[in-house]
């Protein structure tokens, strides 16, 4: 690993989508007018497909290398050279980022194709695809950037693109508000993230190794030990600050609030944000810096607690929601909580594993819900659905696989990855967190099957306009669903639990993720723990079956008519309202105070001093008028009077002038002779 090979093609993995975005962004309107939607779609889909192919190529190159040398780098150019601080634009692919580029360009690519069908007929398709490409570019930059600052470029870039895509239909302020919320909440996270970068850089610089490159950070983590700031270990502080960034991007407590609103965007965008990109950024960042986080047990503890709490909190909210996408949105937050729980118990591989499987089944579910919304002519309320399995077989079957996978059905992808996390929580002696996670597993099964029954079973509750036009979505939308569904079945087998076979993922990630060696556990214990979570899932499904399959939900079922607990959950614990009042209101109040201070305090002083000057000059004026002017006038008057008298002298008669001159000269002579001698 000491002599990485310069591999020029890596930059194209990242740059292709940027080119697509540039072409569509600058010329897309004309392309769409002239050559139609197909051309715009081609401009967008081709670069992402190329990125995917190049990613496969990079993956193949890695496979060909011995495990310890799996590392490719493409140093493009020096971005900011500034004394000891030097940041390169360099892309690298190692086993961890290889997985990520495959997921981002692969699942992201499927979402691009799906969008051709879903967004059909939109007049700003070019703009949509430009954003989608830019999003893919940012995410690829985030995962391939070889240093923290370059990662931050992608980090902010996905924030920008989420803003643009969530508010894509900008004529409606509900959407633009959701976009702003996403961006600003993410910025709060970024605030922590950049401070973490600064602290890390300067601490390492103080030890003679100022760097932000991941490889070098990993190498020099040991230097952080024993260094403190404000009485806290620097490693703890750095990881805490970086984790603040992660709570923003990956929607954890307390910054998760933007994600449910993010479904205001077109549904494929929700899939992109929730599954393949953006929200996984925080998990990826922690996995990337796993040695740094391992050096900060206090932060890890916090991450584990936040992860479990978020998983529980979001799952309880998901239970009561009636909007098909909102249920999925909260389930994303909840599943991300699992990933952070894994990170927190230092089971980084398990977290990445769940990230991977979740990308498949969540993309499948979101795109499936898009297909349903498409068929329901924009309706998202599950109370209006029901019985859709007959009209939409492809959507039904793929959605079923997705639901089974997320609910933890044995031998599907979600089962293996979720169980890896639960097992690690148990094995690291976090029994309480494990208990919470198991309970959440039950809740997950419950709310997903609640959704499943409400949407696909029973009688169709839509009005007849919608019912008569129910149809399966076009092929361009269903084949991505099948691919994702297939992934949701098979991807789990790369991370089998030890007693079932070889864990390919562990081996693959071993060069980059350094797991602490755990104690040995018996197979019986593992199977026992696994059985508990299966039992929880079965219980969840059974309750859902009882409440939502046997009893048909009513069209006009009002959450407000239910009990207090239900209302609190339905209204998301009123967190949005509290945030709005405290943070938004507080900031605006400060803003008004500042503006008022300028206007009423500072300007009063300024205007006042101007007033004083005016008054002084008024007195000055009086003085001028009555004293100075009087004197001047007096002088003038005297002069005038004298002049008036002397006017008689000026007769115009040359002779009299001569007399005067001669007389004057005579007088002068006399005076001179008489007195000056």
């Amino acid at each position, binding site marked *: 690993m000491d002599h990485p090979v310069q591999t020029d093609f890596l930059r194209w993995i990242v740059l292709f989508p940027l080119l697509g975005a540039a072409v569509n962004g600058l010329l897309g309107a004309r392309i769409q007018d002239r050559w139609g939607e197909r051309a715009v779609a081609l401009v967008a889909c081709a670069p992402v497909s190329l990125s995917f192919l190049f990613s496969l190529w990079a993956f193949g190159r890695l496979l060909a290398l011995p495990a310890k040398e799996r590392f490719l780098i493409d140093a493009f150019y020096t971005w900011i050279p500034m004394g000891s601080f030097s940041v390169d634009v360099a892309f690298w692919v190692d086993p961890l980022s290889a997985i990520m580029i495959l997921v981002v360009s692969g699942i992201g690519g499927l979402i691009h194709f799906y969008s051709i069908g879903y967004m059909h007929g939109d007049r700003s398709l070019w703009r949509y695809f430009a954003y989608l490409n830019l999003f893919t570019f940012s995410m690829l930059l985030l995962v391939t950037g070889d240093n923290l600052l370059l990662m931050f470029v992608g980090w902010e870039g996905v924030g920008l693109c989420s803003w643009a895509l969530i508010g894509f239909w*900008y004529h409606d302020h509900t959407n633009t508000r959701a976009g702003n919320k996403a*961006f600003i909440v993410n910025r709060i996270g*970024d*605030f922590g993230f950049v401070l973490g*970068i600064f602290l890390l850089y300067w601490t390492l610089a103080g030890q003679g190794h100022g760097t932000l490159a991941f490889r070098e950070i990993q190498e020099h983590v040991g230097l952080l030990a024993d260094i403190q700031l404000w009485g806290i270990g620097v490693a703890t502080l750095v990881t805490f600050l970086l984790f603040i960034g992660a709570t923003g991007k990956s929607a954890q407590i307390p910054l998760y609030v933007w994600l449910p609103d993010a479904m205001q965007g077109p549904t494929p965008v929700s899939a992109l944000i929730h599954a393949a990109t953006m929200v996984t950024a925080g998990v990826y960042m922690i996995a990337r810096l796993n040695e740094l986080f391992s050096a900060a047990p206090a932060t890890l503890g916090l991450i584990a607690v936040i992860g479990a709490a978020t998983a529980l909190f979001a799952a309880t909210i998901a239970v009561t929601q009636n909007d098909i996408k909102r249920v999925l949105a909260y389930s994303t937050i909840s599943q991300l909580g699992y990933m952070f729980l894994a990170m927190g118990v230092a089971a980084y591989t398990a977290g990445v594993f769940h990230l991977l499987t979740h990308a498949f089944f969540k993309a499948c579910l979101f795109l499936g819900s898009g297909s349903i919304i498409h068929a329901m002519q924009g309706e998202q309320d599950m109370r209006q659905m029901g019985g859709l399995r007959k009209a939409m077989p492809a959507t039904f079957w793929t959605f079923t696989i997705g639901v089974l996978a997320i609910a933890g059905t044995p031998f599907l992808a979600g089962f293996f990855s979720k169980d890896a996390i639960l097992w690690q929580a148990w094995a690291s002696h976090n029994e309480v967190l494990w208990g919470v996670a198991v309970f959440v597993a039950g809740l997950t099964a419950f709310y997903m099957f609640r959704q499943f029954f409400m949407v696909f079973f029973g009688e169709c509750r839509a009005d007849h306009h919608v019912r008569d036009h129910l149809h399966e979505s076009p092929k361009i939308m269903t084949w991505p669903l099948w691919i994702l569904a297939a992934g949701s079945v098979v991807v789990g087998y790369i991370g089998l639990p030890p007693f079932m076979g070889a864990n390919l993922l562990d081996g693959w990630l071993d060069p980059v993720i350094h797991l602490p060696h755990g104690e040995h556990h018996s197979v019986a214990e593992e199977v026992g723990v696994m059985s508990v979570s299966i039992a929880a899932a079965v219980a969840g499904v059974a309750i859902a079956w009882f409440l939502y399959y046997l009893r048909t939900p009513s069209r006009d079922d009002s959450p407000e008519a239910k009990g207090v607990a239900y209302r609190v959950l339905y209204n998301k614990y009123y967190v949005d309202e509290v945030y709005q009042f405290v943070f938004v209101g507080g900031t605006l109040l400060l*803003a008004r105070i*500042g*503006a008022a201070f300028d206007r009423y305090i500072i300007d009063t002083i300024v205007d006042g001093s101007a007033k004083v000057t005016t008054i002084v000059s008024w007195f000055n004026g009086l003085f001028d008028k009555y004293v100075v002017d009087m004197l001047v006038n007096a002088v003038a008057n005297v002069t005038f009077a004298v002049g008036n008298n002397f006017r008689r002298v000026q007769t115009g008669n040359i002779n009299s002038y001569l007399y005067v001159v001669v007389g004057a000269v005579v007088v002068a002579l006399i005076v001179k002779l008489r007195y000056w001698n």
Partner: protein
Amino acid sequence: MTEHVLSYMVFFPLAGMLIVLCLPRDRHDLIRWVSAAATVPPLLLGIGLYVNFDTTTTGMQFVQRAAWIPAFNIEYYVGVDGLSVSMVLLTALLSFLCIFASWNIDKGVKGYFALFLLLDTGMTGVFVALDFVLFYVFWEVMLLPMYFLIGIWGGPRKEYAAIKFFLYTLLGSVLMLVAILALYFYSEPNTFDMTKLMDRSNLYSTEPLGMWPFNVWGWGFQHVVWMALFIGFAIKIPAFPFHTWLPDAHVEAPTAISVILAGILLKMGTYGILRINYPMLPEATADLAFWFLAALGAWNIVYGGLCAMAQTDMKKLVAYSSVSHMGYVMLGMAAFNTQGINGAVLQMFNHGTITAMLFLLVGVIYDRAHHRDIDGFGGLAGIMPVYAGFTALAFFASMGLPGLSGFVSEVLVLLGAWPKYHALTIIAALGIVITAGYMLWMMQRVYLGPPNEKYRDLPEINGREIFTLFPLGVIVVVVGVYPRVVLDLLQASLNNINQMVISHLS
């Protein structure tokens, strides 16, 4: 040629002014084209300057000097180093573009363009002058046209704004003049030569003065002079609490004048501090930087941002955003490390281009709708898509989005500030959230949402307006992706200036 290049850059606009004054007053187009022609040579010479600039030396380049008033040892002495060359380039570019942004001025055309060209000469002169008297003369030459440009061609409250601008500025000029004279009389032998004063930096006493309140604060002669200069410059920056002239001046000034004001005039404050206070009064700089540069800078960032959020007038919002963004410059220069000081000057350059775009963009909409009320629009993105595209670029650049120029300078400033001022950096970093807040909120209210029926037929941005915005947009992207195009110019000289102060830090 190289010897005269700076003088040509300074006096070409002045020659243009003289020609404009000789033209008949009703030949508006002729006046405009002559004025535009007068700003082209400085721009071309500026490009030559950029290409031929030696980035490895710390000394003054393209120097020209000649005796002016020998009795007092006053010279005509001009030259540039890394600090001033970026500002000279910015001035040449913005002056050229602003002629075109002034195209639809139709009242007193001759007077407007004559004053504008005089202003151009003054601004360029300030950045190249290396003799204190020359510096002061150019400083005043620049202020007077500005007063009239706001006072005559301004909006409804132009008199108030112009007087306010004048009062503040006059106060600054007086203090600066006193300080310059003090520097002169206490130098040995007496000289106005700025390069000489920089070399003999230890000359000025820091012995605490006996007079109250300086004996309490432990301020010596050097500190008092520093403060006099600082107030003069702080008014220009503008630093809290000397900033309230700015929103009023901006709101009333015509678009092009706002661009010049924010793009160039504000930079003179921070330029002056780096050119004069740092090298000539290094001990005082080291002593006073914490409160008056770093803390005040961080306060500017947050306070300016919050005030921006409360505004309902687009121009006022942009004006307050300048207060906020100039805070980064103050904070960065007070970091006394290479990241901070280079970030600060890069921020000066970037703010010059980004805020110029913002004011030009507000001007575009004001020309069409004749108001700037943020809540009076809505959905402009659908009506004027190209215009909205430029707006988005400028807004996100202002928010410091990575990949655009503002990010590089802000991150360098904060990075530089961190090791010296932890708490202040944390406060300043709040700016990244606040800026996003007010910028996006304005974006949402003006450009997004349902289109306002009243403005359904607003014409799209025209060729002339695109011509003024496009070069700036390109710069914003290029500097963001490859910041070395500017950073390489700065480093040698700024590190040298920084070095002069570092040794005096306690």
